[in-house]
């Protein structure tokens, strides 16, 4: 009796499996997985889903599944997935991810695709240069942004401070605006993403032109003077930031509360100011002695080696759709600055992004951070040492000399 029931049990399992196996009929649809951090709050996810529906209608044999992850989770997921090959087919992530992911050896060399050059010619060259390592491209630009000087017009008028026209005037304005609860300027971090524009606008640099040495560059007199200015502002209370001082208010909260008056920031500052009802204005970073050089940001599309040929081809089709004029204009309407050359001149895009002309002007002179595999470690070293210098723990020259030594040791490895 017992044996009979066991045999019946196993036979039924086999039958079930056969039925299931037969049911997966050949549908030939390729499902690609797309990881991104488009924000829900700005309506970007909705536009993405509309675009995906349009793409699937035009390409009936491709299905796109999109997965949202926030910025750091996106990076961590790729790090975790790189050893287990649990990776997406296409990812839209920060341009800073390219060298990091390349050091994990997971990115597809997209310049190997036949039509890469023709497609790359339809997008802005400067943002696309963030994908270039050596002579090869490991991604393609998705959208771009840079940082411009936002100011709280109400606070400036209340303190009778005129809008700064040079970089030195920015510092005096920050001092003049600080009184009572108001703090002149906020800088959320101390990496090159934050202090790079000030250094470059005064003619300094972080690494040698061939990105092999830091000695003589990150600790040059120009950089020391810039960081000393920031340290003096911090000491008198005109500069604050949560990474330099964990007790300080975060930048978004501070803007909403009317605490911060000036910030060099990207397009997301505009949407948060509108949401908080702040009377804001924005201008390109006022020029230092060597012009107005802001830092290039943005996102790139990347593909991964773990995908097979069919998935890589389908993902490439999806990417080409997402950087076509139509998709870029639709994304522009929800705050994503386009890289497509035609989209940049599209009337609808310009109407949707009122600060587009200001950003476009800043983008012409914006500089990208070095695209080297060790860049994120280099920037962490700089952020730590600059924070030590600004908060007064170490003398500026000492901190920057230590940074140069550590970076050189890292790059020599």
């Amino acid at each position, binding site marked *: 009796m017992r044996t009979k029931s066991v045999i019946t049990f196993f036979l039924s399992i086999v039958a079930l499996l056969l039925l299931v196996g037969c049911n997966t009929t050949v549908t030939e649809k390729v499902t690609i997985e797309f990881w991104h951090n488009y924000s829900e709050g700005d309506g970007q996810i909705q536009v993405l889903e509309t675009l995906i529906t349009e793409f699937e209608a035009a390409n009936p044999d491709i299905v796109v599944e999109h997965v949202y992850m926030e910025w750091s989770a996106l990076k961590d997921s790729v790090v975790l997935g790189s050893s287990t090959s649990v990776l997406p087919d296409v990812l839209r992530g920060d341009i800073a991810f390219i060298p*990091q992911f390349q050091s994990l050896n997971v990115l597809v060399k997209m310049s190997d695709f036949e039509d890469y050059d023709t497609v790359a010619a339809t997008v802005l060259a400067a943002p696309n240069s963030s994908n270039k390592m050596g002579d090869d491209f490991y991604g393609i630009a998705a959208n771009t942004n840079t940082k411009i000087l936002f100011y709280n017009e109400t606070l400036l008028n209340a303190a009778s401070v005129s809008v700064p026209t040079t970089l030195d005037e920015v510092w005096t304005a920050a001092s003049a605006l600080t009184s009572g609860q108001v703090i002149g300027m906020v800088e959320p971090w101390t990496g090159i993403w934050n202090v790079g524009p000030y250094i470059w606008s005064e003619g300094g640099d972080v690494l040698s032109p061939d990105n092999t040495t830091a000695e003589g560059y990150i600790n040059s007199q120009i950089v020391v003077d810039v960081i000393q200015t920031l340290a003096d502002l911090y000491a008198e209370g005109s500069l604050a930031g949560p990474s330099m*001082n964990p*007790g*300080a208010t975060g930048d978004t909260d501070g803007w909403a509360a009317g605490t911060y008056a000036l910030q060099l920031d990207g397009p997301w500052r505009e949407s948060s100011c509108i949401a908080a009802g702040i009377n804001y204005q924005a201008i390109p970073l006022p020029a230092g002695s060597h012009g107005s050089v802001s830092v290039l940001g943005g996102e790139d599309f990347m593909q991964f080696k773990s995908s097979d040929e069919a998935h890589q081809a389908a993902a490439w089709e999806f990417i080409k759709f997402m950087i076509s004029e139509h998709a870029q204009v639709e994304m522009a309407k929800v705050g994503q600055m386009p890289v497509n050359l035609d989209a940049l001149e599209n009337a609808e895009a310009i109407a949707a992004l009122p600060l587009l002309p200001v950003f476009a002007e800043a983008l012409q002179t914006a500089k990208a951070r070095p695209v080297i595999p060790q860049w994120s470690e280099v920037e962490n070293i700089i952020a730590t040492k600059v924070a030590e210098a600004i908060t007064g723990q170490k003398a500026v020259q000492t901190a920057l000399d230590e940074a140069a030594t550590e970076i050189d040791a890292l790059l020599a490895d």
Partner: protein
Amino acid sequence: MISQAVIKHKKKRRTNWRIWAIFLPGFLFVTAFTFYPMIKMFVMSFFDWKIGFQQVSTFVGLRNYIDVLSDPTAHIAIENTLVYAVVTVPVQMILGLFVAVLVNGIRKYSVSFRLAYYLPVITSWVVVALLFRYIFATSGLLNYFLVDTIKLISEPIGWLSTRWAALCAIMLLGIWKGIGWNMIVFLAALQAVPKDQYEASDIDGASRIQKFFYITLPNIKGTTLFILVMLTIGAFNTYTPVAVLTAGNPAHQTEVVLTWMYFQTFSALNFGYSAALSIIITALIVIATIIVFGLSAKKKVTHYGK
């Protein structure tokens, strides 16, 4: 006779099989999720461990250990962790014992008091850390109270802005959150102290303080040791309060070993370094535990009755 021996033998085999069946799943689980990762990590600490796609890890011997021991930030992290452990563990225990003695002595509302003290223990670390962050922020509740309400100081103090002030805030959080747990465990131990010893001391005319030091304390020695070991291990494993209150900032001055390890693993992708750091910490915890056991074994227990 022979049939009896056969029956006994058969019974024994079936029992053995049952024991293995019960023991094996739990043992496999612990092996897979505790022993295997520990051994793997020990191996990892001797390699320049790469996790990239088809990347090979190279053997580097003791280089990771040398990197950790010569890294000034790792020194800061270990220092901060040791300070945290040395301060929070005794303070928690003393306050917990004090509260336990008080609660043990009351008859009415003891459940309410126990609940009130235990509530911080069961609250989420993240929630209370965020609360403390809002209290200790430069424009937070504490400064508002000191500057605007009681007007004790004129300028707000940056509680979280510098290393030692931030560490004080973190330690305060750790102590506040742990008192309830200490109280509960000490309460159980206090209730196990034999009442006849107190009565005997009453006849001898002992004061309350003498009763505490000569009867209560010696009787809860085992519990004290247990709590000491648990709290020490827990103190070395601090992560959430530091991550939420300061994120290790400013400039990695308030890092503890776990936050520094997290940073090295996920931001800098230095897996070998982090593995070496965790082995070093494990060694430190083992040494600390041995010291604690050694200290408690040295004192000769004077007999005070059965």
